[in-house]
């Protein structure tokens, strides 16, 4: 998992959730049969866009320009393919680079950059190798006004779930071990949130997570822990409970998440 921060962003260590992706017309420079471009604009993890050749582009053009300060990519094999990714926006005249990276593995990627208020279109450009991408989101990230609880907790980087099967022979010798991977399981706790936050950005996210498409990207501490980012969903109702009689700091969020992990 990797967070790439380009330039200066506000409160870089506050948790970010990318969910409210921009809607628009999807296009690509090319697409293989069964791997159409539109599939990367959908939340499921088992479909993907795959170009026929590189360099390749995947773009989304909103009906009208909206602010964007993040790009998240999940369920991909960019790292193992050896591809390089560029995040770009169209300013009406040319494509401008917002961020770039050459991933070293196939875990979730989050690009954070200074907000672009009104780009005509956004795209990712892939060079170096053909790869598949399951989920692409361009969005204005939901930034929590407080930091995530540091401890106790399980880092996303150590949240993989394994089941082990060890075979020992009747004579007592170790014959082999098999392991079954079952994705990620982790939690993120954020305390001291205000009623204003809960009624605003948080309420919209709750609706999405509890009743809508459900999936999102989450990075609890983007600058300090850039490896901790996941494409995730919750298996229980997401809520922000009240804990103190002070409207400015009363709410607490405990997100129990499952996340996608490339095998």
């Amino acid at each position, binding site marked *: 998992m990797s967070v790439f921060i380009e330039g200066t962003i506000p409160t870089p260590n506050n948790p970010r959730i990318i969910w409210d992706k921009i809607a628009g017309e999807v296009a690509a420079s090319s697409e293989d049969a069964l791997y159409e471009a539109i599939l990367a604009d959908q939340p499921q993890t*088992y479909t993907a866009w795959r170009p026929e050749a590189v360099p390749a582009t995947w773009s989304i053009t909103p009906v009208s320009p909206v602010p964007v300060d993040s790009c998240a990519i999940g369920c991909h094999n960019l790292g193992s393919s050896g591809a390089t990714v560029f995040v770009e926006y169209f300013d009406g005249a040319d494509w401008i680079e917002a961020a770039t990276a050459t991933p070293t593995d196939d875990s979730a990627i989050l690009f954070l950059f200074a907000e672009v208020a009104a780009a005509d279109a956004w795209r990712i450009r892939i060079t170096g190798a053909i790869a*598949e991408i399951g989920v692409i989101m361009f969005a204005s990230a939901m930034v929590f006004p407080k930091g995530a609880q540091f401890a106790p907790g399980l880092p996303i980087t150590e949240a993989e779930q394994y089941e082990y099967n060890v*075979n020992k022979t*009747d*004579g007592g*010798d170790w014959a*082999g071990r098999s392991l079954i991977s079952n994705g990620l399981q982790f939690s993120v706790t954020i305390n001291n949130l205000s009623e204003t936050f809960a009624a605003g950005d948080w309420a919209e996210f709750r609706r999405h997570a509890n009743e809508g498409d459900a999936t999102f990207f989450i990075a609890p501490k983007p600058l300090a822990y850039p490896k901790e980012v996941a494409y995730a969903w919750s298996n229980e109702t997401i809520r922000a409970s009240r804990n103190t009689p002070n409207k400015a700091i009363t709410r607490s969020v405990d997100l129990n998440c499952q996340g996608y992990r490339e095998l």
Partner: protein
Amino acid sequence: MSETQYNRRPVRMVELIQPRCALRFGTAPCMAEGTPKCYNTYSTCRDQDNYDPSGSIAWRFTDASNQGAFRGIGEVDGEHIKTPVIPCLTGTATKPTRLNLGAARDGESPFGVRSQLDVDFQDIPWFDQWGDYYREDRTNPNRGTYWAKQKARNEFLSGWTCFYYEGYAGQALEDMQQRLFLPEQIDGPDAGGKVSLRAADPLQLADRRRSLFPRPTHIILKDDITDSQTTVAVFSSEADITDQFGNTTERYIRAGDEIFSYTTATLIDEPSGEYSLTGITRGVFFTEATAHEENDTLQRVGRYENMPFWEVEYDLLTKHTPAGLKDSYIDEAQWDAEGNQYLGIFRATGTVPEPTPVTDLSGELCQQGLFSIWWDERSQKIPMLAVRPPAEEPVAINDRQHILPGATLKEAPEERLTRVLLYYGQRNPVRGDDPGNYARAQYRGEPDIEAAVAGGEVRTKTVFSRWIREDTLAIQFTRRLVARYLKTPRYLTISLDAKDRAIKVGTVLRVTTRTITDTEGNERPVLWQVISENEIKPGMTVIYDCQTYAFVGAFGVYMAEGSPVYTVAAAGLGPDERPSGAWYAGPDGKMSDESEGYQYQ
């Protein structure tokens, strides 16, 4: 990554291959009209006369946690689509093939216990992103779930195949273990979205209800005939009167208790299907020629003459079962090589006077022809194995390096035999199993074993054979059957780590375990033959059922002129011919390297 590597990650995939129409809706030759447009399935076709099933779509399913292991496998090749994986698989269970060696276990199919695959799925929202050529024309393509739509679009599963892949993350699909099944039914989705698929091996097509030999025929006598008439008029379809049932030039037909032969069937009147049968010989095979009346129903009779037993079996499976049991499931070259090497002198001659399940006939042929057949899921073939000594060195396994805890050892005293009585040289095929209907009998017994001091138990098996005509085979059959079942058959069940899963059904093992000893308590290696394998934990643990193996020692095989002497063969200076050769032993019965001398088979 493979089964021999540590920290292997087992993965599995189920692939359902569905035939589809290769045409496009409303584009000639398809004349379909109306809405909704088809889904290229027969059930949804609006012009079934022009339906072209030469296309296909392979739906692939895996566990949600394994989808990353199958990235990138989707492909389209003309009218053949192979989808990327859909991660809605929630469980699989296999019931393995269980070999019935030489069809010797009564009450069990000659094909043994049939293998079966049960798969569980969880239904998921489905918006037809793959395989729907008319998606843009649909009213609401995003509505509904995958399995609910599949069930609505496919009323039958005939022509479908199912592959079950078991492998490890990092393996290419073609390197994974693949098993072939034919889907039988799909239950669900239920209110919770659960779906269950049941599939069985292709030998289901030979089961009692589906395959009869000869098949029932509808042939009607046009007029009364006398007991000596040699020209007979009948009403029949062309297929019923001309199809081959066996390997003889003459055709045979049964009227009541009489069988007569004919050489020619001439069409007299096409609209009514009247044929004239000529070249007739009345009352063949010890049946009595009698008069028959107008409108009597006649039945075609099957007959094989002087044909190797395994070739009769091959003919039955490939020509007298539904089209789904393809030639491709049988490696004819393997059958011929095995049969010619070990069963070449055994020929079958027999008459089947009425429609008889192919599975019953197969049981007779396997038992009396001294071979076994079964569905090998891994090779996706039906191999043929003669009842014979092993050609390869048995695989050695032991407690320390291989056998996991939980081995069981059982005896089957009810399968023991001390005597075999074979009636052969059948006279009248209509008369049935009556000793007086057979020209000869062969008896094999072991009086020493039956003596009171040895236990005093007499166990007799009586066999009436329609196929055996030769004394040589009769002697071989009775001798081998008694030899195999004279001692109480025992069954050993062991679990092995997946690193040993190259062992398969038919393999001969030399097992050394603390639970089997000699009279002094020392571990005693014993030969067993694997009759069943079940990967109880896919990619991790395999359970093998084994049966005691009767052939102990080295058995000789005649060698070609110019073959090396024993010392040269044993020195490894060329291909090791010792398992498939024979040399004379010394006076002490030993070879020059102190190994046991060869025995006659």
